[in-house]
């Protein structure tokens, strides 16, 4: 069965190469049949890679330990449900997953491309096939998931215990899919450059796939944070670890892109800049893949030690050279349709948005590579950890929240101070009020207060917009609930954006609360002993120890009180895997909208004492609530709306007024 998998890989390579060649030949020699045929080949790639995937999964199901990958990532004791996770747990398997995902996305993108993009589609197809070919070639020549061992081991090594958690069913797939989906808007941009159609043909598809890639990667990152919080057991959710940063940098660049692409869609501006930006975003994604696989910096994430890193670095370098080379070749044909009229305008605010996001991405990149720089120049290893990123990126994030509160109220082209004042008066008043209330009630760490005040400014601005709009619809006879929803439906990009901004506010609340007002204690308790943390009383009752074939499970029983009020009995658990010399914990998290009580079980000592780390993290729940809201907002923004005729003129365009 594994042979079938490898043969399918070879077949996929052939089909992708054919699609690449046929689309280029078809468009150069103007042969429609070749173009048609290349599209069919593209649609075929996910099928063939699906066969490959199925055969690897099949090898896991049949416990075929002769396949090296299966032996390395599973064993007889492994719960069958984790086969899905084991599939992408290691280097080779994850490459197959990525290739399969990319093939599916490519087929969908080519199939659904709208009429406007038809002219550039052959080139788009060619580029995306090149990316797909890269991954297949790496598998075929360097990292074969189907390579066999010389013998058949009686049992495998088993799956990494940290991966046996529901979060692992979805966090890595989303993250990997998110990263590779950057190839789609990139391919549309390259298609535009290659075909010489340097107008706005690629913008519609670029925007849609950009938002999709952004939403998927963002969800993957949030899921990773949630998983780290719930399973790794240090009470935090983000460590500015190089591998985390590897996924974060592309996401930042893509956030910048999906904002500035709006300007091109609306006014035909920033043509050059958007092309450069999507190239940078894709390069970050490639850089991320480089860091994840045998990267040069140590990380808690180490993805199965591999030496494949250099291949991805070459891939990134080659892509950058080619893309920017093409960009400068076409430079003169990239003039924008409009020009910036005023420095106070929506367009200019998007430029500031881009500046902030790219600076944060740059700072993060700088922090990731600095250890190498230091090594090369000083011969000294330096760690760049959380405190660096928090201090340097913190103010930039605050500036972004501020911008989020102001920019949506800036009109296109130019703004007047009067209008701006009118739009911002209430949000600013609300934020001052919130700041005052916080300080009076004892919350007085300056950055926390500033952050909370800015968040309230953003939120009140959005709510006010929504209410104003619903109110005027109400005046025409709609009742409020329907008006609120119809308003959303009438301008989906705008209101989808508002929903996403609200989710960012929720994220910011959680991050601010837990960063500035978290409490942490390490205790060791005898049975029936209690300890007080942050207003809670935690009483240790007893522990149950269960010996399984590959691990020892110790479940502690604790009771939580607030004052005299009994809040519940909880069972934090700690599993120790002797073969990995690693423990995985299931911390107890008692979540309320105000704060999380977080109990991490440590070891059980010989004299009967149990060690616990207890944390109180304010407002963290809101970060996880933000996730689905972010997805909802992205969905609303992407939902197709009746198209307006695209008029390129310097006359102002009215907002679509629909009943």
């Amino acid at each position, binding site marked *: 069965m594994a042979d079938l998998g490898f043969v399918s890989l070879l077949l996929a390579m052939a089909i992708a190469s054919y699609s690449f060649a046929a689309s280029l030949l078809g468009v150069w020699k103007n042969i429609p049949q070749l173009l048609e045929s290349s599209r069919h080949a593209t649609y075929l790639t996910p099928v063939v890679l699906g066969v490959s995937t199925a055969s690897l999964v099949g090898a896991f199901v049949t416990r075929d330990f002769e396949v090296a990958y299966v032996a390395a990532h599973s064993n007889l004791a492994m719960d069958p449900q984790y086969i899905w996770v084991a599939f992408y747990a290691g280097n080779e398997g994850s490459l197959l997953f990525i290739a399969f995902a990319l093939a599916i996305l490519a087929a969908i993108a080519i199939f659904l491309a709208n009429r406007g993009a038809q002219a550039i589609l052959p080139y788009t197809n060619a580029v995306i096939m090149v990316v797909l070919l890269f991954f297949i070639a790496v598998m075929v020549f360097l990292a074969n998931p189907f390579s066999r061992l010389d013998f058949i081991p009686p049992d495998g090594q088993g799956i990494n215990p940290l991966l046996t958690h529901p979060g692992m069913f979805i966090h890595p797939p989303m993250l990997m899919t998110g990263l590779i989906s950057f190839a789609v808007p990139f391919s549309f941009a390259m298609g535009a450059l290659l075909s010489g159609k340097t107008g706005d043909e690629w913008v519609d598809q670029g925007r849609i796939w950009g938002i999709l890639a952004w939403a998927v990667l963002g969800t993957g990152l949030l899921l990773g944070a949630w998983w780290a919080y719930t399973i790794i057991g240090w009470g935090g959710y983000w460590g500015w670890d190089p591998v985390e940063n590897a996924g974060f940098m592309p996401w930042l660049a893509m956030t910048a892109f999906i904002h500035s692409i709006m300007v091109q869609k609306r006014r035909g501006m920033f043509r050059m800049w958007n092309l450069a930006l999507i190239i940078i975003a894709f390069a970050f994604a490639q850089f991320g893949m480089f860091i994840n696989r045998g990267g040069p910096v140590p990380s808690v994430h180490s993805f199965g030690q591999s030496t494949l890193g250099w291949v991805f670095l070459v891939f990134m370098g080659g892509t950058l050279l080619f893309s920017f080379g093409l960009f400068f070749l076409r430079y003169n044909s990239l003039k924008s349709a409009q020009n910036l009229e005023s420095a106070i305008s929506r367009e200019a605010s998007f430029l500031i948005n881009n500046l902030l996001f790219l600076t944060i991405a740059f*700072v993060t990149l700088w922090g990731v590579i600095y250890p190498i720089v230091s090594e090369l120049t000083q011969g000294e290893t330096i760690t760049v*950890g959380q405190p660096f990123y928090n201090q340097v990126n913190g103010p930039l994030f605050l500036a972004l929240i501020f911008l989020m509160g102001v920019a949506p109220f800036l009109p296109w082209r130019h703004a007047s101070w009067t209008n701006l004042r009118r739009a911002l008066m209430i949000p600013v008043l609300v934020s001052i009020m919130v700041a005052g209330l916080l300080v009076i009630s004892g919350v007085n760490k300056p950055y926390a207060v500033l952050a909370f005040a800015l968040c309230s400014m953003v939120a009140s601005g959005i709510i006010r917009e929504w209410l104003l709009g619903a109110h005027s619809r109400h005046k025409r006879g709609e009742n409020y609930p329907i008006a609120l929803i119809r308003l959303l439906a009438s301008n989906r990009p705008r209101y989808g954006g508002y929903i996403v901004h609200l989710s960012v506010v929720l994220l910011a609340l959680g991050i601010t609360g837990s960063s500035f007002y978290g409490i942490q204690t390490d205790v060791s308790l005898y049975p029936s002993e209690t300890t007080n943390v942050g207003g809670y009383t935690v009483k240790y009752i007893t522990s149950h120890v269960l010996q399984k074939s590959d691990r020892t499970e110790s479940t502690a029983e604790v009771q939580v009180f607030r004052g005299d009020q009994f809040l519940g009995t909880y069972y934090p658990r700690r599993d120790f895997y002797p073969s990995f010399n690693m423990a995985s914990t299931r911390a107890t998290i008692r979540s309320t909208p105000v704060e999380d009580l977080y109990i991490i079980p440590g070891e059980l000592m010989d004299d009967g004492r149990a060690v616990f780390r207890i944390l109180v993290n304010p407002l963290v729940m809101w970060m996880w609530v933000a996730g689905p809201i972010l997805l909802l907002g992205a969905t609303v923004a992407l939902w197709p709306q009746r198209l307006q005729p695209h008029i390129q003129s310097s006359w102002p365009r009215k907002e679509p007024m629909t009943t």
Partner: protein
Amino acid sequence: MKCTLAVNLPGDKSKLSGVETRRGNITLTLLLLLLPSYTLTLAGCIANSNAIPPENLEAIAQGIDKSLICPICPSETIDQAQVELAKQMRIMVREKLGQGESRDEILQFFVDRYGPVVLAEPPKSGFNILIWLIPPIAFLVGIIVLVMTILAMRRNHLRNSQSTSLATPGLEQYLAQVDREIGQLALRDIHNWHSYSSPKPKAQDVGPCMDGAE
């Protein structure tokens, strides 16, 4: 078809650009304020991180724990790491605090033993000052590029709007005025877009006739 229009021709072109220039200058000033705000906030954050919180010794110890990297774990602080060495280091931190050593002395103690790699953030001295300086410098470069871009774009815009020529040369100024007032109409439009009653156009807001006749 003859159109009757009542428009106040702007008396002086420079007055128009005077308004634009003032607006632009305010914005550019604001943009330039971004950099010192960022640098000051950054400096404040850094100063804050070194300040010993006025709480109990345990909180200070936890702060120090979070500033030291476990020498044998990949990028985990001794606060997070569960290995024996990390535990020993945590105990040593608390012992030393109890003996009255300061945060800097304790950090230096571990640096002497394991090298600067044991610090969670690079020291703010010597060669490593570079890592702290580069972000504000990069931000400054970004702001400068942004400002220059905005200036260039606006120059292009003004040049383009000047070069659109119609049959009669005197119409250029008039068209610029019309363009400006349409912009104001657009603002009012956006402000009123929630409501469905459009403002009644005043005489001077009427645009030029579409059929090309003056």
